């Protein structure tokens, strides 16, 4: 397990949890990025201000990390932009249909022990594992 980084993973995860708890304490909202983002771009969306600033915070955080001297790695993405766009469409449509992603269902929902969110997480994890197995071990090098 040469790539395992348990300490940074635990610190980062705790910060994500802290953010979710704080957003509920301060604004009474679930820290689900799908819901926040969709409500921001939906033409009929309401309560845009806090959504916009949450998204802004998500983007400013890595910028501030780079400013204080951390390396901000350029993400490794598939070279075929059609695959990238297809992935984005699936993620956008799918998370909206199921009403949550890794944060809304995975963190906030499971923290409430919601059977609905546990089901969502099991299904999207399983689907992603199958796709990675196919792309890496069946069709890929």
């Amino acid at each position, binding site marked *: *397990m040469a*790539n395992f980084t348990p300490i940074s*993973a635990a*610190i*980062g*995860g705790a910060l*994500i*949890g*802290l953010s*979710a*708890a*704080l*957003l509920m*304490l*301060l*604004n*009474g*909202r*679930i820290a689900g*990025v799908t819901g926040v983002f*969709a409500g921001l*771009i*939906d033409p*009929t969306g309401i309560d845009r201000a806090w959504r916009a*600033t949450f998204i802004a*915070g*998500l983007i*400013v*955080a*890595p910028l501030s990390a*780079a400013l204080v001297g*951390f390396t*901000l790695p*350029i993400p*490794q*993405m598939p070279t075929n932009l059609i695959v990238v*766009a*297809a*992935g*984005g*469409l*699936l*993620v*956008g*449509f*799918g998370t*909206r*249909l*199921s*009403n949550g*992603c890794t*944060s809304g269902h995975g963190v906030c929902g499971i923290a409430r022990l919601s059977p609905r969110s546990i*089901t*969502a*997480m099991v*299904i999207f994890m399983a*689907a992603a*594992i199958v796709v*990675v197995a196919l792309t*890496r071990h069946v069709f890929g090098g």
Partner: protein
Amino acid sequence: MRALASLFCGFVFGWGLFISGMMRPDKVLGFLDVFAIPSGKWDPSLAVVMAAALAVTGVGYALLRRRTPIFETQSHWPTQTAIDRPLVAGSILFGVGWGLVGLCPGPAIANLATLSSPVIVFVVAMAAGTLVHDLWYARSVTPDTPSLAQANAADG
């Protein structure tokens, strides 16, 4: 104040994604690649991120269950409990997209900070997927379909 509070929360969330390594698609895919377990190349980091996030959120939510939020008149706890077709179908589609690229919505948006063009393509496509869903949902509305706002009173 609400906008400022959520700016801070988004900022803490973004730092969490950054420090945990979850902004890196290669690291996320390294977790999803369970067939790498026998070779010793599997990366269980994402499981630790989830466990830590769940522990903190779980304790926080338990304490806040009956509390009124500071800058809002009431908490917006999710109300949906149904395990229905949209939940299952949406989760499958999301999982396929996540497995193809290694980005879910939070890290995708945080990665806009890198101004990398594939990330911009991904986020634009993600926004398009969201809007396509909403248009399709609006067309399929019948008198008994919950409005999108009601449907959104749930999850995240």
